[in-house]
């Protein structure tokens, strides 16, 4: 699903927008509600899909159906309006909605399957399935029942970061930024720890300080893009500050 990049702006360490998915989901404007659905989907569909696959041991086609069903339910029943940022985090609330929805679906297994009159969104489920297979190739990496909450959190961070990396890739499409993204890929995404800044500088015919500056810019931009997305997924400034600190400033 394509994400609207129009709000991305240069400069500044903190996102300028104060647009929030929670407020938009309850808006009277259908375009706003649709945008909220988009943002929520982008951030959560993979964590939700993988969570349903593993926790409820659902087959891929059933998990796909349930994933779409969860989000439809969230919007059709206006469940986001019941979310209280003072009581829990949004992802905890969504995970609880998923649990409740899936259990309810299991209970009423005989009722009409989704897919008839429901809108199906074009999501890369085969891609998510491939990731899940790669993640669980080692049986020890399959979460135990008490680890599903942690698993959902980790997947949420992975999803958020993946989106921000794509945002950064787009920001760096301009010629003067391509080198910065390439360095970011080598050093931070692929994590080639055997390569030092000095070696990179030699390979690219740049000075060490230029490598340092390029990487610093890419990291700063990545952080800003993550925060931009994070801000839209938080209901309040306090929640955003807390979540941002948890992601980058401390341990979750």
């Amino acid at each position, binding site marked *: 699903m394509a994400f609207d990049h129009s709000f991305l702006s240069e400069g500044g360490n903190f996102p300028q927008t104060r647009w929030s998915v929670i407020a938009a989901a309850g808006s009277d404007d259908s375009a706003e509600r649709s945008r909220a659905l988009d943002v929520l989907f982008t951030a959560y569909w993979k964590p939700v899909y993988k969570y349903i696959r593993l926790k409820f041991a659902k087959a891929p086609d059933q998990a796909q159906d349930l994933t779409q069903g969860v989000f439809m339910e969230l919007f059709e029943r206006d469940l986001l309006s019941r979310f209280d940022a003072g009581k829990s985090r949004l992802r905890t609330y969504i995970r609880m909605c998923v649990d409740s929805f899936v259990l309810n679906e299991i209970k009423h297994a005989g009722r009409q399957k989704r897919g008839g009159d429901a809108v199906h969104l074009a999501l890369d489920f085969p891609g998510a399935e491939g990731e899940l297979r790669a993640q669980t190739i080692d049986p020890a990496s399959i979460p135990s029942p008490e680890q599903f909450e942690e698993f959902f959190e980790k997947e949420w961070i992975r999803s958020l970061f993946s989106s921000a*990396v794509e945002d950064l890739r787009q920001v760096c499409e301009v010629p003067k930024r391509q080198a910065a993204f390439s360095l970011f890929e080598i050093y931070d995404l692929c994590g080639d720890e055997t390569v030092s800044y000095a070696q990179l500088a030699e390979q690219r015919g740049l000075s060490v300080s230029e490598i340092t500056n390029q990487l610093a810019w890419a990291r700063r931009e*990545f952080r800003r893009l993550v925060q931009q997305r994070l801000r839209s997924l938080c209901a309040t400034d306090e929640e955003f500050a807390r979540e941002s600190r948890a*992601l980058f400033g401390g341990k979750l």
Partner: protein
Amino acid sequence: MSNFLNDKAVERLRNAGALLEFPGTRYVLQEFLARGGMGTVYAAQDKTLNRRVAIKVLDSSDPHGELQERLLREARVLAKLEHPGIVPVHDAGTLADGRVFYVMKFVEGSRVDQSVASVSSLPERLRLFLRICETVSFAHSRGILHRDLKPANVMVGAFGEVLVMDWGLAKILQPDAAGRSEETIVSTAPLSDTVAADTATQITSATQDGTVMGTPGFMSPEQAQGKSSLLDARTDIFSLGKLLEVMVKPAKNSTAFRIPRALGAICEKACAENLPERYGSVSALAADISQYLDGMPVSAHRENLWEWTQRFYIRYQAAILLITVYLLMRTLFVFLGRP
């Protein structure tokens, strides 16, 4: 490349994203080094002096400012201890988001236990230990206890320099200008990425009796029991004794040397359960080590005749050999000179 980020990539991105900006300062962040109990250490470039420095930044939410004050206290403790064996603090400040940081010398090296593993000579290891003693003794002379001496907190630099790190649990015994008699700072990670952060360090926020702080295996019994009022130089001496045990321990399957009894006795005396049985000061411990290195008797061990003879022989080996050769030659001449 694939859009999928594996767990390692996510962790790297978290660390990369955590690299802070220092607008309005002379520092440019370079890379993440280590994360500890409440602080994160980064490598940075000092633009003015054009040198690499290490910056420790508070990374926990701190609505009451208590942790910030502790981080600054740690910086003040370091600033108070100007010694070649202690990492110097260059600067301290506050970020735009209110978090405090302090800047110190960037140190590259390895943990002392890793460093001595490649040293087969026992005297060389002991000389290294003496330099740790010098640093700790200096801190004691300034009224500061380290309280967390262990291999992870002692680094050996690229040129053999020995640095006692992480004064996060330091206790000031003498009152400062503001009249505070005791300060405790929460422990954080060591400075270099070549030194593994020991997150097992006990962290606490107070120093009243009953509070336990330190690292199991290296902290003294009185420290483990939380008897803060009993802590003095002998508390660090206990940890130094434990550190000495680690430093003189031969590598596995090594036949290079075995721990001599006199040295074992020094370790035992330093690590005595009862405070009065330990060395009274770090310099007394260091003096015993020096005595041992010089082939002299040590206060911790009463040697028997056989040990005395052995030590005497080792100490005066050259002279004994020369005299023996001389006497043999004389004897030989006497016999050969007979008609």
